[in-house]
């Protein structure tokens, strides 16, 4: 792809994204909005997995934290708390009074701050605890998977406080505005789209900065970074924290689009599915993460409604094929000089193995 072509494609994509509500029908718009929300999370995975070499199989946890933080507010909106009102599911579970930790979420600004801060801070703290003892790689992936399992079972079992298996659903207003109308759906879409564009350019800037260079250096030779006198831990923790915050934002926007957040979206299987979006799209290329998310999810939507069992075979095959034969993803095919790139990568990965031994 030549230099100019690249900009024409980018401009066309942004133009289509901005005008989508006028081009496609409301159902397709709702899907596109959801998947764009997911692609914010996917860009976070690209940052940690592709650029920092940290594979997380628990991004669903941070997605869930963001989604639940917003959903808790949406459940409280319109209730008269002073009067002892409670969300419907708590009444059904026989809870006598609203639990204390729910109260602050009645404030929309507190909720919106939590959407970013809670998953971001939790991700940073969690990863710091692991990375500071130089535990990483496969171990980290397995620990994050255990985290996803623990989080989803906890959500399911604490029915009275979290809505259990059904999650939190059935909201109507935010800031006093009805969010269920088609008109509101457009605005939610535009907000999502703005976030996608903003996050894209933020990460582009971040990865081009000195921080990005250090992050890639940490990925390619963590010990060499140490020998040169740098501590790699803060770089990795910041990357994981940003990815957590992005997952939280994606989760909140997804909740707005889908009208539901539930443990089924945050457990082990959905968490690892998130990685495959990035694997298919291209783990080292930012637009690949977005393209992969849209592609895999639209394919899932089409295939799983027609042939439910076929989808799981397809997803399994996608995992195997994408990492075996297309490690740079679809975006890697468009990269200039991708042939040489691939040969270099192969040599490097071989060498890495022999030094590791």
């Amino acid at each position, binding site marked *: 792809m030549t230099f100019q072509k690249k900009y024409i494609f980018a401009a066309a994509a942004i133009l289509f994204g901005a005008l989508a509500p006028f081009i496609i029908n409301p159902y397709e718009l709702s899907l596109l909005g959801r998947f764009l929300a997911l692609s914010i999370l996917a860009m976070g995975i690209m940052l940690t997995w592709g650029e920092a070499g940290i594979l997380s199989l628990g991004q669903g946890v941070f997605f869930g934290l963001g989604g639940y933080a917003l959903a808790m507010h949406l459940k409280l909106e319109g209730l008269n708390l002073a009067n002892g009102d409670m969300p419907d599911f708590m009444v059904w579970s026989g809870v006598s009074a609203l639990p204390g930790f729910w109260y602050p979420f009645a404030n929309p600004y507190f909720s919106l701050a939590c959407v970013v801060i809670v998953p971001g801070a939790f991700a940073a703290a969690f990863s710091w605890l*692991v990375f500071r003892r*130089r*535990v990483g790689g496969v171990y980290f992936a397995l620990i994050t998977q255990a985290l996803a399992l623990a989080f989803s079972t906890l959500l399911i079992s604490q029915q009275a406080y979290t809505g259990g298996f059904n999650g939190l659903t059935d909201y109507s207003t935010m800031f006093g505005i009805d969010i269920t109308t088609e008109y509101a759906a457009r605005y939610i879409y535009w907000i999502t789209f703005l976030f996608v564009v903003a996050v894209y350019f933020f990460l582009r800037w971040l990865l081009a900065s000195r921080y990005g260079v250090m992050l890639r250096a940490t990925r390619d030779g963590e010990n060499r970074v140490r020998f040169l006198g740098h501590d790699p831990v803060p770089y990795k923790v910041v990357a994981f924290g940003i990815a957590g915050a992005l997952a939280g934002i994606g989760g909140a926007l997804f909740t707005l689009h889908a009208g539901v957040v539930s443990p089924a979206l945050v457990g082990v299987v959905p968490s690892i599915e998130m990685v495959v979006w990035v*694997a298919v799209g291209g783990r080292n290329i930012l637009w690949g993460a977005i393209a992969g998310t849209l592609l895999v999810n639209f394919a899932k939507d089409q295939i799983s409604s027609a042939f439910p*069992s076929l989808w799981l075979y397809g997803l*399994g095959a996608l995992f195997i094929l994408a990492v075996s034969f297309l*490690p740079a993803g679809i975006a890697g095919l468009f990269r200039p000089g991708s042939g040489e790139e691939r040969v270099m990568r192969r040599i490097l990965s071989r060498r890495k193995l022999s030094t590791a*031994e």
Partner: protein
Amino acid sequence: MHESAFLLGQVFNGFSVASLFILAALGLALSFGLMRVINMAHGEMLMLGGYLAYMTLQIVPGPLGILVAMPVAFVGAGIVGGFLEFAVIHRLSARPLDTLLATWGVSLVLQQAARNMFGAIGVEVTAPTWLNHTVSIHSGFLSGLDLPDTRIFILIVAAIVLGLIAALLNKTRLGLYVRAVNQDRPTAAAMGVNARLIDLAVFALGTGVAGLAGVILALLGPVTPTVGQSYIVPAFLVVILGGLGSLVGTTIASLIIGLFTALIEIFVDVSVAQVLLLVFVILFIQIRPQGVITVRTRALEG
């Protein structure tokens, strides 16, 4: 029920859960020591063992069917595991994280295949009558303690398997090769050890043991397409706690996790126990990031 009997019952439960973890994690730990890769489809080897037990009991009913099912499951899961190593894992072993994802794909395919063949609800394997008893203690300070035969059976099987693997690793030539490759692959290869074949053999052995564990799982509950998933995450944690490819480490780590889970469940429910287990693991690696058993090595990157 007597307080001490209840506590001892939980400890016994912990040991029997731990012995399942040992059988499930052994193959993971051994292959991880050799190749630094984790097979995410390992849980499906448990499932495969369970279904093989079910099918064997269809053909060989009667009290001794379960004893026939165990070697069948061992060999069956071993063959599937060997093929998986040859077809997927060996190709990707230079990239451990990608191996993780590819084998997860294999696990999805195997689960769905089981769902299509046997249905999503699961099949029952009835324990033979000689395993239907419960050892009950009626007198003394342990009165009220019940020890189901199946749980005792699990302990015995795990002990035998552990003993056999330890003998294999420490007393045979194959075991010598395995230890050699584990310590220093290039040097072992230079001395004429076929490291490639050792990888394959250990992997097949490990999945075979997982298949065997699947037979035992089938005695405890229905075999479903996702039966392996509930045991595999604790097994991964066992690998993390155990240290690199160490048999002793894996055993100790299994006991720690089994006993921790069983004892904590006295006080909190299962889901909170899971969270506490994770907290425990994270605290543990703050103290011993290399796991319970540290293999002395001069390598910089473990």
